[in-house]
């Protein structure tokens, strides 16, 4: 395996909080992980988990208390590293007195492209993010989704090998989210490494080769979305319809939920055949039987609950 696209070693960030008596608060705690070339890597965690702090550290917008990081073998302190990366900040804001075309031209100038190449790139990337018709509109007239798309265009205007996106789907409507998802998939198809933070777990499951889960500044786990959650079956979900005039079997009546004309019931795996037998005996029509596996969201919520429980033990709150 060659040099990883991103190598993070023991990255730690403390912030001073308080006005008079300053205390140190750890925002990121000894983060170590590697992302391989061409991977789509999801960086998951609730608000305040340390995702944005990590991205800001990688961009040298803030400086680490301890630890180092390299992108494609170059230290993050090396300004040349920035030629190989693109970055979309969370809720991006751009110079709103510029048009989209002028903004992209401005960023392309920083890479030293000559005028003809800049023009070609700007046109190409405006088309790529679906803003070909809005290139000459001032950014102050852009919707949030359009700003997000122009943000992605500025991040990839120089064809970087590694793209960092901070909450690229946040605040977007379903159409906008789908468009951004398509752009990320496209980058992945082109062999780029995409590192994006999100708290929308379905997006991570859909797009990522691997994910890392961060909570309270600490890494909780890294792996493929399927690996990171256990493959055990939570239970069996049965959808069925009852014949007119017949009633629910007594054993299932207590926990079956009616949804329109249908019923849904969840039973343990070992109770499945007995439940099906009962449904058959009252001539119910079985529509589907699906094993319910934990999703990334379940895993995530379990971690958050565990973290809360550790922070406020029951005995302590009673005192």
């Amino acid at each position: 395996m060659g040099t990883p696209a991103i190598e993070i070693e023991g990255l730690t960030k403390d912030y001073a909080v308080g006005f008079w008596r300053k205390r140190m608060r750890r925002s990121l705690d000894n983060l170590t992980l590697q992302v391989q070339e061409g991977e789509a890597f999801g960086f998951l965690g609730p608000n305040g988990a340390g995702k944005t702090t990590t991205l800001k550290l990688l961009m040298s917008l803030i400086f680490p208390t301890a630890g180092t990081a390299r992108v494609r073998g170059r230290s993050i302190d090396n300004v040349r590293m920035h030629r190989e990366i693109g970055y979309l900040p969370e809720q991006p804001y751009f110079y709103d007195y510029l048009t989209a075309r002028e903004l992209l031209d401005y960023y392309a100038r920083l890479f030293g492209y000559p005028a003809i190449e800049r023009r070609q790139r700007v046109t190409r990337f405006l088309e790529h993010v679906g803003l070909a018709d809005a290139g000459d509109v001032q950014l102050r007239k852009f919707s949030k989704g359009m700003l997000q798309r122009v943000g992605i265009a500025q991040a990839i205007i120089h064809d970087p090998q590694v793209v960092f996106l901070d909450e690229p789907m946040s605040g977007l409507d379903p159409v906008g989210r789908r468009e951004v998802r398509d752009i990320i998939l496209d980058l992945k198809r082109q062999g780029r490494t995409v590192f994006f933070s999100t708290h929308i777990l379905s997006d991570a499951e859909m797009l990522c080769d691997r994910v890392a889960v961060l909570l309270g500044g600490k890494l909780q786990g890294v792996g493929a979305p399927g690996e990171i959650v256990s493959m055990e079956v939570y239970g069996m979900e049965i959808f069925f319809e009852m014949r007119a005039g017949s009633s629910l079997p007594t054993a299932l009546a207590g926990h079956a939920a009616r949804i329109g004309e249908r019923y849904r019931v969840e039973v343990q795996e070992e109770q499945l055949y007995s439940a099906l037998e009962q449904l058959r005996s009252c001539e119910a029509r079985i529509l589907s039987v699906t094993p319910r596996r934990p999703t990334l969201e379940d895993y995530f919520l379990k971690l958050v609950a565990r973290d809360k429980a550790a922070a406020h033990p029951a005995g302590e709150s009673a005192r």
Partner: protein
Amino acid sequence: MSTIPGVVAINTFREAVRDRVLYNLIFFALMMISASILVGEISIGISRLVIINLGLSAISIFGLIMAIFIGVGLVSKEIEKRTLYTLLSKPVRRWEFLVGKFGGLLLTLTVNTALMTLGLAAALFYVSGNFLRADVSILVAVYFILLELALVTALALFFSCFSSPMLSTLFTLGIYVAGIFSKDIRDIGILTLNPVMQAAARVLYYVLPNFHNFNAITAAAHGESIPVSLIWQNTAYAGLYVALVLIGASAVFSGRNLK
């Protein structure tokens, strides 16, 4: 202007133009027109002096207001609006960003000052019907105003690297006023018998920018020639002072966490 500071400077200039900063020229034009008409009515023989004094003072004041109020927002606005995040994710060093912002505002001030100087020239021609050889002093006085504005811009930028726009305005204004009276501070030090006070006054005199030497408005209004040595001296002084302030600003800003 294809270097990174050049690219940032052009964008800063474009921002100022699109934010309608140059609208102050309309007020200047209206003021010069009113003054030209008025001096024609009330003064005999001193109309040139009044117009030159008024025009140069207005160029200086308008420029100072722009340098301070735009200068203190050069960095803080980019941090507050987070436009700096995308910029610094590109291969841009922090000092290049600062030099670019400084250059952009200086370019704006130069264009603004040049246009006001044209307005002053037009008003002068209107009231006196001709230009004199001594009017070259007006251009020198304008050049000194520009040097002064460069210094003020550098100071405003320096303070904006670590303090809020309001505090930066107060600091810059404070240093500007103290800089005008830096010679008086030195003289007070000489008059006092306390050696600590003398040393403090001497340090202040050398540390504070000496704005007194940049004021050539009275000389220009009276048609007096300005020594070439003073032009060189002021140019070298402003260049060195600006460079030192920008180095200081870069040192402060390079280690700053952008929250």
